[in-house]
């Protein structure tokens, strides 16, 4: 009998695995399609912009003949579909092209690589910090629900989410460096200069993690199994740690891969005030300079990151939470 049960559950698991695989493949295909549509759309839209951006800084001082010669040399007199086709041909070889304006004639991959590294490094540290601070904060608030630590925490979280971050980041930079010996600007070789950017980067996520952790825990605290555990006489602490916290952490897991991946996008505010040479604001920068190849490349990267992040998050959830079954949910759609 025991044997039969095992066999049954094994075959069920196998079926489940197939489902997961199928699901992954399907998701992957859809993701590729989304990427294709996004890139094509951006590519065409950028071609609708005025020509100034293609001609460098001196366009007003160029004569008509020179402008015409330049456009022809760049292939911009060709129809958009041809240009698009060339773009995809290069993309297929893993070549994102060269920047035109942001750093003239330099491979985009070469520009972006070190930036991603720095943003990811700081971002990962900030994320670690925010998890280490935010999760216990949320747990503490949930445990002391309605009492002053909870109220204080809520106030802190609401403030962080409500106040314009451009303002309080600058505030931190100006006042935290006064007399403390902390440098105002980031320096890759001096870890002490990383402190303030990391804290600034972490603050909003601390608020975020704290808020969600508290919510999930409070949610769990009302579940029947918690009542049962308490009725059984399990100590409050044990209930919290063993049951509530663990279960509440599961939904948090899902967001971690994408948050981690998104750190490579950098933070516009923080990186720009601390001179962190990362990705923050790069997209805006290249958009404003109309460096089309860079815009395409960045949109491609960010969209891919978004898709991969979601994807990993979902997979992770399936792995972490045994209750989730693709079959069940799939049918309810």
């Amino acid at each position, binding site marked *: 009998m025991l044997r039969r049960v095992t066999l049954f559950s094994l075959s069920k698991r196998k079926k489940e695995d197939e489902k997961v695989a199928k699901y992954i493949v399907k998701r992957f295909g859809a993701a590729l399609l989304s990427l294709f549509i996004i890139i094509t759309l951006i590519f065409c839209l950028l071609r609708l912009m005025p020509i100034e951006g293609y001609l460098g800084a001196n366009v007003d001082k160029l004569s008509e003949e020179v402008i015409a010669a330049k456009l022809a040399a760049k292939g911009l007199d060709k129809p958009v579909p041809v240009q698009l086709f060339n773009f995809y041909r290069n993309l297929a070889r893993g070549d994102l092209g060269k920047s035109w304006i942001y750093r003239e004639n330099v491979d985009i991959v070469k520009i972006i690589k070190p930036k991603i590294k720095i943003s990811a490094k700081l971002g990962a540290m900030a994320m670690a910090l925010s998890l280490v601070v935010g999760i216990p904060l949320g747990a503490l608030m949930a445990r002391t629900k309605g009492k002053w630590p909870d109220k204080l925490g809520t106030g802190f979280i609401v403030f962080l989410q409500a106040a314009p971050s*451009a303002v309080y980041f600058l505030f931190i930079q*100006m006042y935290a460096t006064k007399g403390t010996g902390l440098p105002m600007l980031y320096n890759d070789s001096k870890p002490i200069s990383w402190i303030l950017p990391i804290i600034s980067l972490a603050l909003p996520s601390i608020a975020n993690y704290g808020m969600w952790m508290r919510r999930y825990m409070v949610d769990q605290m009302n579940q029947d199994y918690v009542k049962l555990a308490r009725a059984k006489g399990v100590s409050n602490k044990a209930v919290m740690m063993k049951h509530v916290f663990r279960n509440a952490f599961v939904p948090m897991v899902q967001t971690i891969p994408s948050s981690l991946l998104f750190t490579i996008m950098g933070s516009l505010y923080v990186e720009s005030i601390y001179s962190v040479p990362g990705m923050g604001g790069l997209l805006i920068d290249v958009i404003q300079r109309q460096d089309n190849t860079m815009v395409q490349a960045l949109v491609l990267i960010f969209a891919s990151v978004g898709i991969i992040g979601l994807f990993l998050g979902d997979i992770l959830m399936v792995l972490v939470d045994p209750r*989730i079954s693709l079959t069940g949910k799939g049918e309810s759609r």
Partner: protein
Amino acid sequence: MSLFRKGAVMEKASEGMADQLEKALRDSLPDDLTPEQVAALDPSRFEMAEYDDTLAEKTGYSSYSYWRSTFRAFWNNKVARFLLIALLVLIAFTIIQPHLPGQRPPAQIYDFDDGSVMRNLPPSHDFWFGTNAVGQDLWARVWSGTRTSLLIALIVAISDNVIGITIGILWGYVRKLDAFLTEVYNIIDNIPRTIILILISYILRPGMATMIISMCCVGWLGMARFIRNQILMIRDRDYNLASRCLGTSTGKIMIKNLLPYMVSVIMLQTALAIPSVISDEVFLTYCGLGMPKNIASLGNLVEEGRKMMMTSSRYQLIFPALVVTFITVSFYLIGNTFADASDPRNHV
């Protein structure tokens, strides 16, 4: 569409529900009573009640009214009550402010008698919030900016709702559209929100219309997804099936059975849309893609004030920042409280 991600909104709502439940639980089932408390209990409550025919007949009907319960639940929260009143006063004031006597037009530039501009005057009796770098009255500009930003926020929130609910219903009900809409949703949802905002603001010319359009483009997503999920979930619940079996019309099911479930979330979504629109506006302005600077908006005022932070003119930052913070905090808290209150499960 991501299968496992609960709607963010749902989770926010569920917190409120959980709060209420827990409170009820605590109130009804005190963990351990002290001997004094035990002594204080009314012994008559432990006596057997006698059977009474008339009382037995009374069951089965309550004078439950959804909206009254909602408002009562909301009104019981002191902070929310206070914030609501303060917010209403603020909104009323922003609307009537230009019609009050002695108010200055926000775009008027003031000169001294010698022809120089009244720049950066600190707050005074004449100019309550001082003047800005071009000699405009900051008091008038803050309120005019609040008006602009609230107007944008309102338009965006309403269109988020309209677009979101329409698409959500279509998505949930019309099976043929499901795959297509799911794909559209995926495409938009896969790109970070800020990138969409930036791209749209860049491609169109910066201005109020662009800002509204770009925010609407990303705002309806959450709502539509939520409505769709709700429709799929609630449609086939037992009590709805029962209703349908008993001959209740679809319309009535929608209004009486489905809508109350959604009102809480729609309200919450609307309330949260307003602060997020305002912070998006501040963000876009920071990126240089905001509204024309001569139109006062909270984003513009904060951005202008930010440059003054380290000077004695920092009042130019403090006033608009206070308004932004206040509006955001109150909408956030009120929205959450109202969402809790409007959830019928909390009316027990």
